């Protein structure tokens, strides 16, 4: 294994290019990410606990929305993550399709279930916020509707990836689909938004109208940063498992497992 990495590093290149080259090698990626995944989880735990403590325990209730405003610390960061993960997935899908890097393919594809999970959280939190505020669990509000379409897009990517047996072909097909979805997503978002105003939908939005009080904003931002660490840790964990699964019959997987014993 050591000789292999040395061979790749032979031509003199700057540190960043070398790092990217190394990350493309499955054993190197596996060992390198394995070292700091626990740290990512730790940072996530600390930030999430801190943000939620500030928001749920110390923070005040909103004078307009009452106690139900506390759902905001879950709903808004999850909504941001659902969109952020889709765009990261699309960027990685583009890289994977153009340069055919297997690790990037895997990272793009393992993003999809995490994004779908955040979308589900956004939708449930949003509808549970809607019950006390609007009086019903589901309103065809622009934000909820485009999140629902986003969930369908995620499910399509996951479904296509799992339906094709050959892993690289599956990844390439699903990567292309996620790119097509990414081109459509802004159009879907704006058309749904516009459709909502056309049909005179709900006017109270979870994010309030003009200004958000700092006592709400700060805990929300801390939770949002924590969610990014959750994504990073979860993504790398999933990618490592995927690598083990795909390379089951290769030598480096044996080495890794033997090292553990």
């Amino acid at each position: 294994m050591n000789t292999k990495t040395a061979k790749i590093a032979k031509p003199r290149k700057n540190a960043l290019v070398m790092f990217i080259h190394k990350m493309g090698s499955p054993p190197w990626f596996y060992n390198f990410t394995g070292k700091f995944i626990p740290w990512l989880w730790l940072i996530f735990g600390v930030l999430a606990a801190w943000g939620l403590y500030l928001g749920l325990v110390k923070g005040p209730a909103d004078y307009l929305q009452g106690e139900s405003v506390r759902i905001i610390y879950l709903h808004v960061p999850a909504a941001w993550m659902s969109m952020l993960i889709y765009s990261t997935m699309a960027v990685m899908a583009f890289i994977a399709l153009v340069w055919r890097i297997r690790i990037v393919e895997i990272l793009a594809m393992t993003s999809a279930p995490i994004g779908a999970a955040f979308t589900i959280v956004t939708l449930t939190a949003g509808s549970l916020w809607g019950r006390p505020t609007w009086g019903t669990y589901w309103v065809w509000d622009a934000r909820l509707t485009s999140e629902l379409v986003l969930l369908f897009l995620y499910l399509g990517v996951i479904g296509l990836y799992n339906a094709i047996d050959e892993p690289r072909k599956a990844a390439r097909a699903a990567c292309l689909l996620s790119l097509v979805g990414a081109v459509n997503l802004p159009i879907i978002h704006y058309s749904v938004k516009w459709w909502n105003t056309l049909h005179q939908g709900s006017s109270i939005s979870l994010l309030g109208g003009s200004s958000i009080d700092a006592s709400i904003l700060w805990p929300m931002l801390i939770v949002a940063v924590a969610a990014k660490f959750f994504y990073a840790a979860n993504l790398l964990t999933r990618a490592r498992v995927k690598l083990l699964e795909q390379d089951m019959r290769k030598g480096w997987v044996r080495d890794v497992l033997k090292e553990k014993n």
Partner: protein
Amino acid sequence: MSAQVAGGSLSGAFFALLRRDLLLAFRRRTELLFPVIFLLVVISLFPLGIGPSPQLLARIAPGVIWIAALLATVISLDALFRSDFEDGSLEQFVISGHPLTLISLAKIVAHWLVAGLPIVLLSPLLALWMNLPTESLGVMILTLALGTPILSLIGSIGVGLTISLKRGGQLLSLLVFPLYVPILIIATAAVMAASDGLPYTQFLGLLLAGLITSVTLAPFAAAAALKISLS
């Protein structure tokens, strides 16, 4: 090689393929009728399920006709590349050296002529059934004429991606329906605006813009999808 087939023979290949596909479709006339019959059956279910009230039917007519058109397009989409994939002629097209984008475009045009155009032609009858106001009938036909080609174009990407699967049809609907959302919204908004006597040309403009964009982009994406599926 591609330099040699430039110019006249490119369009020659396009029209040859288009003619072949139309001929094949015409030979299987009964299969050709399935999506159209499906459309009629689905539309006739709505009054049965909702009740025959003319006002209510007129209110939901644009949405119902458009959703039925989406469903009919999706069930006919699988035929777009399926038989050519199964008998290996798709691979022959790729080997022939003609750009796959052109081949995809020819097949998409053939699909629209076979599956999309009948919907447009049938829409007066559907509008009659659904009690759509006569003043918005023209807009309904226009939205279908502009919108159904977009459905075929976007759908071709989904078909290209699922073609190598044995039972790709079920997955296909999951892949393409979310992408159809904007078309559904804009097209039904145009018809509703016309029914209410409001200006609607801007919606038709949006549909036209969507058609032009998808004509320029979708064949490339469909060709890329086919390349992945054939690899």
